[in-house]
């Protein structure tokens, strides 16, 4: 395994991993929330402000030209990474949430009262609420694909929900709370068969495996750079050109216009139509560097190593008496959501936090999933390729200590 051989040098690329918490080495297991940032990305942001800072797309001067080049080069990197048809299919936003809102807001124009849109029970709130707002504005109705005990979507139920009133289906590729990889290929194919569009929230998928939007034939695919070793504040919206051309602009402002007069304004071509105002230039450039870093390790290697961590941690956790893992699909990424007996997840999280272990506790912005299992929340650990077997062993020790204190 390539990563295992190079784990020390990989970890050295992330300065934050040497942080001490209460005298203990930080163990960062909250990668589903955000991944840590390698030196090359941090340096890129610093270099930008030291050597390039200027506004893009409009200055005739050297700095502006260089910054524009780097910014657009980042777009090229994401276009190639996703195997999109052209760079104008890549829109930079502020994050996954922004990307979803941009699309859901545009769909106001395409929906009528009584139309149906389909979500899944496995969603993050950010892929529920914008669409609920859309329903309120248009009178469309939201239908929900249920899940089973393993935390998998019931595909047969999904097929029953599809009909000629269905206009768009939006589900995540990977559940942030349970780690389930959803059968998006089937969802896309079946939705298209009845003429519905599909948006996939790939926030938890893009960091873990390769995405080919052409092969998927997906209409919209969205994710955030900060989960891919990039900085916060940058999101990627892939959209098929024909959809992005149809979709109305989300925000008005500079850069997204063609000609402006008080009588009428015409909008710019893609992708500028959706990038009003000065974008997060340093962030977008650094996101491209983060993507390069991920690709230098290789998503195939990442998937293989993270699966190894997932299997090891799952079996170690299950050896602890009272541990119940939520989301036991065979098809999952490196997320483990669990509880221990009747102990509140918050109590466990607070205690192991003092030992330097960063996990997420609570509902993970996915209240419908917690309601399904009838629990107040879970402890969630999520891995990145810089995590180690030793860290998992330390977590197990810490959990045992916490259980002893709490019982």
């Amino acid at each position, binding site marked *: 395994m390539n990563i295992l051989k190079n784990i020390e040098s990989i970890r050295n690329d992330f300065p934050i991993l040497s942080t001490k918490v209460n005298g203990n080495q930080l163990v960062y297991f909250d990668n589903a929330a955000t991944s840590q940032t390698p030196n090359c990305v941090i340096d890129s942001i610093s270099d930008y402000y030291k050597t390039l800072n200027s506004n893009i797309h409009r200055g005739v001067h050297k700095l502006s030209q260089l910054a524009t080049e780097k910014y657009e080069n980042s777009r090229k990197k994401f276009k190639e990474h996703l195997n999109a048809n052209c760079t104008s299919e890549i829109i930079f936003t502020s994050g996954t949430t922004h990307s979803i809102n941009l699309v859901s807001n545009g769909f106001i124009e395409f929906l009528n009262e009584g139309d149906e849109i389909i979500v899944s029970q496995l969603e993050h709130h950010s892929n529920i609420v914008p669409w609920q707002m859309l329903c309120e504005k248009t009178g469309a109705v939201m239908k929900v694909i249920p899940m089973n005990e393993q935390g998998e979507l019931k595909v047969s139920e999904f097929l029953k929900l599809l009909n000629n009133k269905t206009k768009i289906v939006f589900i995540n590729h990977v559940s942030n709370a349970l780690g389930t990889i959803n059968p998006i290929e089937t969802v896309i194919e079946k939705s298209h068969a009845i003429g519905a569009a599909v948006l996939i929230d790939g926030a938890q998928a893009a960091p873990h495996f390769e995405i080919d939007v052409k092969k998927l034939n997906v209409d919209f695919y969205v994710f955030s750079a900060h989960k891919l070793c990039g900085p916060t504040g940058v999101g990627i919206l892939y959209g098929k050109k024909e959809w992005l051309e149809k979709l109305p602009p989300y925000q008005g402002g500079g850069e997204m216009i063609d000609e402006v007069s008080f009588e009428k304004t015409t909008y710019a071509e893609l992708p500028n139509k959706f990038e009003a105002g000065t974008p997060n230039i340093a962030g977008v450039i650094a996101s491209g560097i983060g993507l390069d870093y991920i690709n230098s390790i290789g998503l195939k290697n990442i998937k293989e190593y993270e699966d190894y961590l997932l299997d090891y941690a799952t079996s170690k956790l299950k050896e602890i008496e009272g541990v119940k893992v939520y989301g036991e699909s065979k098809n999952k990424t490196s997320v483990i959501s669990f509880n221990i007996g009747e102990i509140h997840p918050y109590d466990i999280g*607070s205690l192991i936090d003092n030992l330097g272990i960063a996990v997420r506790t609570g509902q993970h912005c996915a209240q419908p999933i917690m309601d399904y299992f009838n629990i107040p929340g879970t402890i969630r650990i999520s891995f990145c390729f810089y995590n180690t077997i030793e860290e998992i062993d330390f977590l197990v020790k810490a959990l045992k200590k916490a259980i002893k204190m709490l019982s």
Partner: protein
Amino acid sequence: MKIKDIQNQIVEEFDIFDSWMDKYEYLIELGKSVPIISPSNKKDDNIIKGCQSKVWLHADSDNGFVKFYADSDAVITKGIISLLIRAFSNQKPKDIIEAKMDFIDKIGLRQHLSPNRANGLNNMIKKIKFYAIAFSKTD
């Protein structure tokens, strides 16, 4: 004992412990002595918002002194609320309203609460003060 003195007493007690784990162990122990809220008052209206765990808080007035009762589904939260109740229960509304709340900072508890958890703590304190204000008007 005055609220201020109780707070100083709590700070002294926590000073004895060297490690954070010991402090937490003590906090968990203290949680066991919370005056438990009656089942009829353990209702949604009495839930404190902003906490990751559920916290119920209720108060009544006894001869001009406010008495607090609470419960939580998380034991550490119960420990925290037990400290608040120890400081504020059996006190006069006026004293509760005017009390300065600094022992949480002095024992270093707030540094160990993430902002959203600290938000829950702030809401607990706010609710305690609200009860005191309500009773100051009826007494």
